[in-house]
């Protein structure tokens, strides 16, 4: 079992009222799975992803990562886990605009304490892997959307994490580029990485073997195929 949510609730306090984003979610994901979390906007799917990525803490319930509860972890320990065990891919890529492609890929390696030369070597290997070795020195604004997302994926893979979390990874891309990105995720999954993709596009969800449907803060369906 890679991760497990037990009765997880998330309530946001805004203004005077409390807004329940998640109303008690149970979810188990095995190592090596590839699943899509689907739902309309405001359904709580992004909140779910943030919780899984240790970017946020549940208001109630427990999140177990690799069998261990995460609620008592310090910020420092959570940062360490995000660095080593979780790779993030965002809809808007979120590359650091002043850093070149290879430097962006180096960021997680730097926080892991990898020495600069080794860092560069590994970052270049990752860029080669996503087919962008020739763009290593380019700044993000010199790259196309698909290229940026490939750099972001290379960055997410920098420390070879067991879990890859993607938030609408094809949302800002055209259909063909989106399919290329999805093919890359499928390839990564075949190599053993657990991939969780939040999306509202059926086209994307179809490429996965499991679809978790979320509505109004609750899981309403959990479909497996193949």
């Amino acid at each position, binding site marked *: 079992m890679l991760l497990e949510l037990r009765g997880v609730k998330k309530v946001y306090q805004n203004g005077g009222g409390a807004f329940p984003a998640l109303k008690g979610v149970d979810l188990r994901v095995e190592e090596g799975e590839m699943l899509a979390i689907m739902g309309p906007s405001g359904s709580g799917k992004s909140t779910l992803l*943030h919780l899984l*990525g240790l*970017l*946020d803490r549940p208001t109630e319930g427990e999140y177990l*990562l*690799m069998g*261990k509860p*995460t609620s008592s*972890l*310090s*910020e*420092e*320990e*959570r*940062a*360490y*886990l*995000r*660095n*080593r*065990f979780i790779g*993030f891919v*965002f809809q808007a890529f*979120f590359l*650091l605009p*002043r850093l070149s492609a290879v430097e962006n890929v180096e*960021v*997680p390696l*730097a*926080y*892991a*304490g990898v020495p*600069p030369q080794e860092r560069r070597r590994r970052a270049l290997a990752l860029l080669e892997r996503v087919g962008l070795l020739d763009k290593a020195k380019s700044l993000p604004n010199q790259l196309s959307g698909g290229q940026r997302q490939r750099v972001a994926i290379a*960055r997410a893979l920098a*420390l070879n994490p*067991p879990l890859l979390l993607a938030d609408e990874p094809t949302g800002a891309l055209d259909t063909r580029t989106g399919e290329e990105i999805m093919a890359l995720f499928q390839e990564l999954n075949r190599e053993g990485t657990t991939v969780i993709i939040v999306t509202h596009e059926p086209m994307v969800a179809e490429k996965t073997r499991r679809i978790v449907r979320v509505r109004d803060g609750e899981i309403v369906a959990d479909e497996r195929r193949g």
Partner: protein
Amino acid sequence: MVAGLGKEANLRGKVGLSLVEVVRIALRAMAANPLRSALTALGVVIGVAAVVALTMVGQGTTQRITSLLEGLGTNLLTVGPAQGGRGPGGGLVRFGGPATLPLSDAYAIQEAFPGEVVGIAPVAQGNFQLKYGASNLRATVVGTWPDFARVRNAEPERGSFFTQEDVDLRRRVAVIGYGIAQDLFGGEDPLGQRLRIGGIPFTVVGVLPDKGDQGFASGNYQVFVPLSTYLQRLARLEAGEPKVNAIYVQGADRNRLKELQERLTQFLAERRGLVDPSTYDFSITNQQDALQSVNQTTLVLTLFLGGVAAISLLVGGIGIMNIMLVSVTERTREIGVRKALGARPKDILAQFLAESVVLSVGGGVLGVGLGLLMARFVGQAIGVSPVFSPLSAGIAFLFAVFVGVFFGLYPAWRAARLDPVEALRYE
């Protein structure tokens, strides 16, 4: 693949960025906005430059005045008129107004303090027309005793000072200041030449060295003649006791100068039959008092200006804080991304703290450089050679670093504790 979580995981190893990298990231962030960075550092630059320049010029001034005063004689006490005795502020002799001290005081002191007083020189002075050939100028003429040369550090560079015999015989001989030798005699050698002082011919027997100053504080434009000659020929004394403007007394022992000053005061008061100090018609000043008051004045001035400079450093620091707060807000997204990629709160803290410290250190370095230039410029303008003090430059520099840390801490702390989810959502 899965080693364990959190505490069990190896958190002890080398994790995070090295100092060099943190500074490199900071430099890059500032290079992205060079004008803003420069303007932000400017406050610190000006503050540090002001501190450095002020202390350099201040110390230069103190040193110059000190050496000036010391060049005017060592272990020196000056007997002058009551309250009029402004001390040996400048020049070799500087007592205007009427001569009020009886010359007999000088003889009496000589007799009463044989071991403790090693030199005594009463002076009477006035302004007279000097004439040599076709050229003439007005200058201060001082009548005194031969001891003057030693007591007031006025040994001629060429020729010699007049002698006791010259005084006894009321010879018409003169020792002239460097400026007079230059202006009145031009290229000619003044020694042995006849110089008319107030129409009376004198023979030049000595020329004083350049005292290095122009204007009022100079011995360069004074002429020294035997006191007896002065009183008879120039002051045209009629009846009564001869009066002098001041009496310079050189003590034997520097450490007992204060004591000698008190005993002299007592002695002169008794001579006059005066008891109440407020009725004394004379005063005695100590060269050390003058030095102390000069030093005190420059110290007060330096502290005051230093305070102004410190305030400008403070304002510079607030400028840094302001810009760092803006920078943190602008880069909220970047902070969120870095956190998602594994930056710990302290990594973010270090990143932003490094920026403000690099700004202030850069400002400090530039400030020390600019301060050196300013000190040179100001020193040239007011005729003081500035003294570089590594201590004050070091203190100003460290203060700048402190300002960077202090005012950078709050923005960096805000950045470090940003909620990653909020930060990623930030548009």
